[in-house]
């Protein structure tokens, strides 16, 4: 515990969605820091043929002695142009790039200070003005669901009455199943956890996707100063569970599931990438060696699978040995 506190945590969060859905406001509300002080918003005509950019903001925040190095990856311009074909390509390229960089670092000689820039979580903002997922949403999620943990959110939920929110959530869940999109699944909690925790966990699962409202203004409601939005007909409190799921999102993201998100990124997505990469490399090598023989042989499936198995076994061994080494090192240092 002490050592992890001393080292500090790092977390990379990506936010994606059309502009005007309140992404920056939500980030502000989540981490209570203003990352976008001088942001220039493009006008409509400039956005007609907008390309997607990737912007990274890194912030070091500290709470009760625990340091968190937070990196927010923003994707301005997503879905803004008139023709949005393949507008998620820069984003997938970025994610792959981070994986590649980590892969290289890991295979390098000096592995003490690896910078982990891999994207741990992607918050995807779904527009509440429609009847469900749009083609561009489906396209984006399908392109990224095997690379990043996707957490879908319903943005600007203050335009939906509770009945509509329920219908929309159901609709979105149905469509996610229909299109075969793998969003981030909350892990099952152990059976020996207390009832309260289990209850919370169940509620969490049932309210996905979260309907959130963000605000960076503080208003006065019922004598208290709360974060909220002021309307002529009432005040929306961001942290009121009855108003929106912001609290659930914050708890999940920061307080309970941050580590799990990182683990899933390392174990599942990164391993997928690594296996894919190695497979590509081996197939390229075998292709090169085959080029030398004049007889064109069709690639036989079975030998490749065997070599893959061998490679995987060797990987496992390597990893186990590495873990043992690490443990021994720690013991020595302690």
């Amino acid at each position, binding site marked *: 515990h002490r050592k992890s506190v001393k080292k500090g945590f790092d977390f990379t969060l990506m936010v994606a969605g*059309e*502009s*005007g*859905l*309140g992404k920056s406001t939500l980030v502000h509300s989540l981490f209570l820091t203003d990352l976008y002080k001088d942001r220039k*918003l493009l*006008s*409509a*005509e400039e*956005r*007609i043929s*907008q390309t997607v950019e990737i912007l990274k903001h890194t912030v070091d925040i500290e709470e009760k002695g625990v340091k968190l190095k937070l990196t927010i990856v923003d994707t301005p311009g997503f879905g*803004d*142009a*008139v*023709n*949005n*074909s393949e*507008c998620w390509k820069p984003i997938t390229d970025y994610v792959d790039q981070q994986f590649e960089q980590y892969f290289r670092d890991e295979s390098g000689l000096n592995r003490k200070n690896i910078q982990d820039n891999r994207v741990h979580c992607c918050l995807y903002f779904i*527009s*509440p*003005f*429609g*009847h*469900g*997922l*749009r*083609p*561009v949403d489906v*396209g984006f999620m399908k392109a990224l669901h095997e690379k990043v943990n996707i957490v879908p959110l319903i943005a*600007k939920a*203050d*335009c939906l*009455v*509770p009945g509509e929110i329920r219908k929309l959530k159901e609709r979105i869940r149905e469509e996610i199943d229909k299109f075969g999109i793998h969003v981030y699944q909350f892990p099952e909690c152990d059976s020996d956890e207390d009832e309260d925790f289990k209850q919370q966990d169940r509620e969490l699962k049932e309210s996905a996707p979260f309907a959130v409202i963000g605000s960076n203004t503080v208003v006065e409601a019922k004598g208290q100063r709360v974060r909220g*939005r*002021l*309307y*002529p*007909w*009432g*005040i*929306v*409190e961001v942290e*009121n569970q*009855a*108003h929106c799921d912001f609290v659930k999102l914050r708890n999940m993201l920061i307080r309970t599931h941050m580590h799990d998100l990182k683990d899933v990124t390392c174990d599942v997505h990164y391993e997928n990438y690594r296996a894919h990469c190695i497979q590509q490399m081996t197939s390229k090598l075998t292709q090169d060696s085959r080029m030398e023989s004049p007889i064109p042989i069709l690639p036989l499936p079975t030998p490749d699978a065997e070599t893959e198995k061998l490679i995987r076994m060797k990987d496992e061994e390597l990893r186990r040995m590495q873990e043992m080494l690490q443990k021994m090192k720690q013991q020595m240092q302690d």
Partner: protein
Amino acid sequence: MAATDLERFSNAEPEPRSLSLGGHVGFDSLPDQLVSKSVTQGFSFNILCVGETGIGKSTLMNTLFNTTFETEEASHHEECVRLRPQTYDLQESNVHLKLTIVDAVGFGDQINKDESYRPIVDYIDAQFENYLQEELKIRRSLFDYHDTRIHVCLYFITPTGHSLKSLDLVTMKKLDSKVNIIPIIAKADTISKSELHKFKIKIMGELVSNGVQIYQFPTDDEAVAEINAVMNAHLPFAVVGSTEEVKVGNKLVRARQYPWGVVQVENENHCDFVKLREMLIRVNMEDLREQTHSRHYELYRRCKLEEMGFQDSDGDSQPFSLQETYEAKRKEFLSELQRKEEEMRQMFVNKVKETELELKEKERELHEKFEHLKRVHQEEKRKVEEKRRELEEETNAFNRRKAAVEALQSQALHATSQQPLRKDKDKKKSDIGVHQSGMSLSSSKVMMTKASVEPLNCSSWWPAIQCCSCLVRDATWREGFL
């Protein structure tokens, strides 16, 4: 006399003099007559709703007209934009309204929205075209005609809070010269007052800087000038639509119920719905129709007719009548037609000639072949004839030789004259018959005559021949025979 009359009418158009009436005539009831006529005729009004799927177009229509137009929820996964017109007959205190609501289904859903505006523009043009066709008909019934031209386009803007979307800008630019556009901010209950103010200013600024002409409520008629001017400043209207009723105070009002409050649709403080309804229906409906007819439709008509080649005035700036232009066009067209016919006929004749030549060629070839074959045949025939002649000569030669031999043989027979042998010979002759060749008979005869013969004691020819064959072996006889 007639010429001067004409001159007076055409050149001098004096100002109408205003006179005062002595008593009540009664033509002040003309407006009432007009009104009652219009009322019995009924009005038609066509609204086009353009906006993203799910933005609240159908709900707003229901709220505006206080009724439920049956429409099913549209899906987000339409391949392209299509327009869905639906006509309803509404009646309010003996005034009939034929309302047509055209929905742009699937707008803003596709990933590639480059061609999204096209179906909409095509639809509007098609309605203009229908009206133009009706106008140009020889027997037309304009007052009975169901006018389907779009009178107003309500453009629903998504309340992002920042500015217009790029698709909105592109579409509005394409539509502003064809239809009256009224931009509306939909689902306005998601924007707070201060944000709304900034948003409205940003939108109007963008529209102006890009030259988009939206509909301005008319300010030249004093009755409505004031209110219209005020309303113009509130554009675009931020509306909220709802068909559900919520109890507020002790009344049931149309509203949306949130956990944090109730948004009342008809509360001016909450949204601009009331303003929109006033402007659209109660005050300016007629002006919208006027504008559509006099501005947008005239523009379309002019473009279309110019395309067809009509012009308002020719070189010496004398107004052409439509009829003359039409005649000229018709003549041109007919002459064009004739020319084409000539061309085709010419082509046909040429082709026929070519084919004829080809056929002749072929005929000639066939003849040649025929001749050739005939010649060959004759050659062969001649050869055959020659061979036959040769053969005949040979047979003749042979026959002659045969005759010579026979003659010789008969001479020899006469010399010996052997009776039994003759009998035998006769027998032999009779036994042998026709099919024995003359050669063998003569040879046996010869043998008989040349050899020193003893009378044979055999009764038939066969043993005689066998005895002869023994004799043949004798050399002396052979010499004699050869």
